[in-house]
């Protein structure tokens, strides 16, 4: 599986870099892929 990447844009310089997500960033991504995570579900 390809490592997940993120695009990081700086509004001051206008530059965008693409890099692999850090372990911390990966952990913060919701893992539920479908509607079980929808807002109509209980918290």
């Amino acid at each position, binding site marked *: 599986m390809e490592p*997940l*990447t993120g*695009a990081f844009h700086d*509004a001051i310089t206008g530059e965008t870099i693409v890099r692999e*997500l850090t372990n911390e960033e990966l952990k913060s*991504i919701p893992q539920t892929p*479908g509607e079980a*995570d929808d807002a109509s579900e209980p*918290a």
Partner: protein
Amino acid sequence: MTYPVFATGDVLPASDMNAIGLWKVTTATATNQSTLSINNCFTNNFDNYRIIFMLTAVSANVNFYWRLRASGTDSTAGYYWGGLRVGTLGTSSVNANSPRPGAEVNPSFLSSAIPQGTSTIELSRPNESVNTPFTFVENFNDTTDQQIRSGGGIHLVASAYDGITFGVAGGATMSGIVRVYGWRD
């Protein structure tokens, strides 16, 4: 003075230019990434912002989220929000969600087959050390229907933010464009 209707050759003095209501701060693009983060887009130049996210591709049927961001780190707690979701085929719901610390906000079930969709978000005072109210209107295709959702909420963390992250759940990737605008104070 021809304000607010300008004519060819008019001089545009600062007083007129400073009265223009909506100013584009930046445009950011993602191509097959899991997240798109924009840094340094919220400053003390504006109190209120409009963000328009246009999805152009997604690798799987997944949820979509956004989060406020400060100094390169997303805030993953304190999002309170609710909304009305209307399906064009008649499947509708009221989304009165309780706070979901650490969870995503504005999830929509995106269809990889029909990924076109747009979310327009209004943020109030994200760059100030106060809670951040927001409203949103979005339309996305899910696997069975065209969904339209509108609502609002508050990020109940009294911190100043300088950026925003958009992302998709579950290890998927997306392509899209985000434009950030500031409303003239």
